[in-house]
């Protein structure tokens, strides 16, 4: 069974559209994250949720809105997509206390045309 899963794996869309990426973890973890990997492979934190509550928002444009319906899911909705949003988006989860490993999903490659 996949520990952290993301859908879709690939997403190609036009500028100005709204799209969502879904993330689910079956590890029983309390904390989930979204990271963005740019074209130079640099990884940066975007958001973190702990038990459905937002705890980190790293100055991400408000076109990005994470939603956590329950602690096993953290979805990312993006409004008015721009060319610069093209990247690979990774979801990750971590057990409470933060001492443990973050487990990453396979990534969603978003291409904005």
């Amino acid at each position, binding site marked *: 069974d996949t520990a952290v899963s993301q859908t879709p794996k690939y997403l190609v869309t036009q500028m100005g559209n709204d799209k969502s990426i879904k993330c689910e973890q079956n590890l029983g973890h309390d904390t989930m994250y979204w990271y963005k990997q740019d074209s130079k492979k640099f*990884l940066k934190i975007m958001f*973190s949720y702990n038990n459905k509550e937002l705890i980190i928002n790293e100055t991400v444009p408000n076109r990005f809105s994470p939603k956590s319906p329950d602690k096993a899911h953290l979805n990312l909705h993006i409004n008015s997509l721009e060319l610069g949003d093209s990247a690979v988006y990774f979801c990750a989860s971590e057990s409470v206390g933060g*001492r443990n*490993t*973050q487990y*990453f999903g396979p*990534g969603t490659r978003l291409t904005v045309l």
Partner: protein
Amino acid sequence: AQSVTQLDSQVPVFEEAPVELRCNYSSSVSVYLFWYVQYPNQGLQLLLKYLSGSTLVESINGFEAEFNKSQTSFHLRKPSVHISDTAEYFCAVSFQGGKLIFGQGTELSVKP
């Protein structure tokens, strides 16, 4: 501000040669240290981590890293690499849990 620097963006080596991927960090507080590996078109997998205790940590596939507090380094080493080790390697820190701050990545390319 906390930061992570991977000193080499690309490391080409021949198969069965030793390799060292360098990582330095900047922090005024205690940190947890990680190495993640990303194979082509895949997500990140944990390779090894240092939380506390012994400063030398090992992975199941022959990699090891040593935490050096005085030099604020966490270099990754393997005595003999395989073609299958070709991947992007990321050093990361977290400050007693929470978000990971990643280095820029090192592309390890193992040639026959």
